[in-house]
């Protein structure tokens, strides 16, 4: 059995959970095993049904006082206990912040290896997998020697796609939890920004060192706002203090996956590229037609961004009347 750990937020499966189910469905088929899921901190039928649409036959639900909100210790403990009592061949989460955290917590408790951010997994007596290093600019073939394969698939490695729909059964899992597991529970949650956020924005207008200054981002803001998107930036820009780190797209910043990423004045250093490469489409604006970002983009405009971005903004306004 392959057990997929589901991430959920505000009563819905998050995108990462759907990616994990999609990845897991293929993996389970390769294994010749059932696809099952772990729903921790909820037994919501809607979530169970949603997992079924991605091919999960059984959803193991687990609720408890200390699971009232997310907490890595408690969540990790539940996964570890599920491994012990359900004996899956493998456990898979999506390589999001939480997914990797839960899997590492479980692995620590089980004393088993955990392979994060896999791109490709080959099950067998000895499991082998290809995982990403350097945020995706390098791949590592690795092998594990373990009773259970604890894995995560890299965020955005696959696009979430329902399939093999099942009428999933919900099975309640009784976990042995106590107050000590609440040691790392979320105490408070602060919403800083309403509306579209960088990881979810359909359009991201990115700026690099080529923007030239903090003020230079005003033109990018204007276009992003008009398109219902967000402004992102490169690490160089954050280091220069022009934008907050929360706007940083890259290996050590946010990984984005918009419909279109408009990368302006960004050369496309590796650190940035790996955060942007999951974008569905990329449009680069650069004065250097050989810049890495231009070479990797679907479309490019060879121009000074400060000339072309206002022109695009005007054109959008004109067409919208």
């Amino acid at each position, binding site marked *: 059995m392959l057990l997929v750990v589901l991430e959920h937020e505000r009563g819905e499966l998050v995108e990462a959970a759907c990616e994990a189910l999609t990845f897991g469905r293929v993996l389970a088929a390769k294994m010749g095993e059932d696809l099952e899921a772990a729903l921790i901190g909820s037994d919501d039928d809607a979530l169970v049904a949603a997992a079924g649409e991605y091919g999960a036959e059984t959803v193991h639900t687990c609720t408890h006082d200390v699971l009232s909100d997310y907490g890595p210790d408690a969540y990790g403990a539940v996964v570890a206990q599920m491994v012990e009592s359900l004996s899956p061949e493998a456990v898979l989460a999506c390589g999001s912040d939480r997914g990797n955290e839960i899997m590492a917590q479980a692995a620590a408790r089980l004393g088993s290896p955990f392979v994060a951010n896999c791109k490709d997994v080959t099950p067998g007596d000895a499991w082998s997998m290809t995982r990403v290093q350097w945020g995706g600019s390098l791949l590592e073939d690795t092998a594990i020697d373990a009773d259970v394969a604890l894995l995560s698939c890299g965020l955005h490695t696959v696009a979430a796609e329902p399939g093999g729909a099942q009428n999933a059964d919900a099975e309640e899992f009784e976990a042995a939890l106590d107050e000590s597991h609440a040691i790392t529970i979320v105490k408070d949650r602060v919403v800083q920004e309403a509306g579209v956020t960088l990881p979810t924005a359909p359009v991201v207008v990115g700026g690099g060192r080529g923007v030239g200054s903090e003020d230079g981002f005003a033109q990018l803001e204007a276009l992003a706002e008009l398109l219902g998107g967000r402004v992102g930036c490169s690490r160089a820009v954050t280091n220069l203090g022009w934008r907050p780190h929360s706007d940083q797209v890259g290996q050590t910043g946010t990984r984005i996956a918009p419909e279109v990423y408009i990368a302006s004045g960004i050369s496309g250093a590796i650190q940035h590229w790996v955060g942007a490469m999951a974008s569905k489409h990329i449009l680069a604006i650069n*004065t*250097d*037609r*050989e*810049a*890495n970002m231009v070479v990797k983009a679907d479309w490019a405009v*060879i*121009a*000074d961004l400060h000339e072309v971005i206002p022109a695009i903004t005007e054109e959008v306004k004109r067409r919208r009347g």
Partner: protein
Amino acid sequence: MSDIPNSGFPTSAKCVVIGAGIVGNCVVGHLARLGWKDLVLLDKGPLPNPGGSTGHASNFIFPVDHNKEMALLGEQSANQYRDMDLSVDSGGIEVARTQERMVELQRRMTSAKAWGIEAHLLTPAEVKEHVPFINGEVILGGFYCPTVSVVDSLETGTTMRKEAIDKAGLQVFANTEVLDVITDDTPRPNGRRKVTAVETDKGTIEAEYVVIACGVWSNRIAYMADTYIPLVPAVHQMADVGPMDILAETNNEIGYPIVRDMDTFCYERQSAGSMEVGSYAHRPILHHPDEIPSNAEAALSPTEFPFTPDDFDQQMEEAIELMDMLGDAEIKYAINGLLSLTPDGMPCLGEMPDVENLWSAAAVWVKEGPGMGQVVAEWMHYGYPRVIDSHGADVARFYDEEKSDEHIWARAEESFNKTYGIVHPAEQWADRRMLVDSPYRSRQEALGAEFFQARVWERPQWYTSNADLVERYGLEERKVEWDNRWWSPITVAEHLNLRENCGLIDLSAFQIYELEGSGAVEFADYLAVNKIDVPVGRSVYTPWLNADGGFHSDLTMMRMAEDRVRIVTGVFDGGRDDFWVRKHMPNDGSVTFTNLSKEISTLGLWGPNAPAVLGQLTDQDLSQDGSPYGSYLPVTIAGVECHLFRISYVGDTGWEIYVPWDQAPSVFDAIMKAGEDHGLRVTGGGVYSLSGRIEKGYRLMGAELESEYNPVEAGLARPKVKAADFIGKEAYLAAREAGSEVQCVTLIVDDNVDSQGRQRFMQGGNEPILDLDGNRIVDSHGRASRVTTAGYAPSLGKNLLMGYLPNELAEPGTKLQSMYMNELYPCTVVGPGSAFDPDDTRLKS
């Protein structure tokens, strides 16, 4: 904005310049100014900063240099930057922490005066007025030059490139990697190949000319054409620290003079609100061009290597000692930046000797970039640069022994820490010695020879076995250590002995070539100003000129046979002369060219007893009738077939004796034995190259003779001009017609006692010759009167100087002054002739 024209990749061009750093851009800019069209500029990196050394250069120009080429091209470059308005005169101060450095600053004042550059010596308090944050306690003084400038080399490159686009339709291709440089390898009598095309990852361009302006990568490109540019990428560490309020408040890129902390080999240069600290003090860190990563592989730019902090720590301590505020500033950026070093510290410019139309514009720093771009462009256009004589930078100057990684690395290791060092004009290299020696090496070592190296050839400068002569002539060491350095009173003793008895001098470093074939004499005449078509057995001393009529060489040519001419030239000019012959020789098979330098050894035997010594070894009539001046006679000495060439470069009668290399030791032994009762001594190059020569006022290529002067000015014009055509003839005729406004003269230093009561002995050259008011003397071409050779004349007991003076000041007896170590010494013009034995009576005896 991209300045790349939107056109396809060309399949042919007149000239492809590889490398779009400061040098490549300036070459295309200057070629465009000279009217060249159909130009292509390539770089494997992006524009405007393709990732070479230009992109991280410290971008400042200190215009004072002891070396004429470097000083004048630095000034020329600084002016070009100013003309483009891409330069700021920040001023600069070289500070001294030691007494020895204070003396060096006096020497720099002298060079500043020679080149007409404003400069002042400052007390520590005065330094502090310019640079308030400096620690006055650790310095003894400073050398302030207000015209030190900071330039924008990247923008200058862009400007020059745009000028070439506008003027010449230059096509520019960035991100274009050169994969091969293709040559036509069909064998030719001159041994040269011809460049035909450049292969790139975007296509192949057939090209008439190709210029390698690739900075640290230059040799990688040269390898592609199976040739060699002797340079090595070396690390220069620098760190950017800041911000600091006192700098930020200037609201300027640079508001304070650049400080060169000479004794710690370090500089501090303001860069907006921060200070750039650069070092030449760390261990030499050299790299192979193939170790340089691609633009994609490099974390910064390819030539900004990871900083190795351990190498820089000593510099930090010294920098903080000089400017305490640096200690608390953040190190924001620090690199091991690559720059180019060569075996002799000079750039590599000119056409590759072995590949026709393949040009090198390499080992050029930002401070010389525009000037050297002009030099290369003019060289390509006119056949020789007009802006300045560039023989010291000529890529043809190298001997084969200098074209190896082993040699360059050793020289770069030795010279790196001399970047800010106090280098004596006669300073010898410690490493890579005895690369080429003469057949007499073991005998010379037994006689205690002190060897000086001429490029790669070793020559005894004096022999310690002659120390007894010092006593005999009552000679002493010099009082001032600097004057005594790389010198011995033995050289004076050897000189006096030669004048009294005779001396045997090893001249094996002479470069000897032969032209042979039906066209040999005609071609020889085409090279030379004077007539070579003379009877067999006669020799001709002659200048070789460039197309503009300036000196390319001065040497001796001998008519060996009807169809054979020998060429004998000095060791410092061998490579250039060899190349000059190959470049011009006909390739129709009528002439062959052979280098005999390592097959024929030369001995010089001179002095009043020379005929008596030689007379014991040969039946040849050695009288002035039997062996007249300039004659070239076959003789047998000690059973060895030799040639006697009656000539003298030291002012006493005698011969150059040409001996087969393998049999040379026995001839040496025979002469020494024959001389035992005639006071014959082995005698060093100090007499031949300097003291003997200067007493006679004999001109030397590279000193008095440069492309900036012609034979009329040098006093070497013959009464008549031969009928045959020769290189530079038109210009030479014009110069004769116009007459000369200057003369090459000898001056005698009337009083050599300095302000501290010490006798000084001038050496080095390039010191200014001034009028009695202390003003520089400059002719209508802008050429300043300066010392071309300085040396002590033992026979006169005086220091002599040579140099060019305007006619009105060249009259014998004219009183002038010369500067040495920032002090003025009275001197008197001797005139264009000799200070010693002006009537050549000793030569004729």
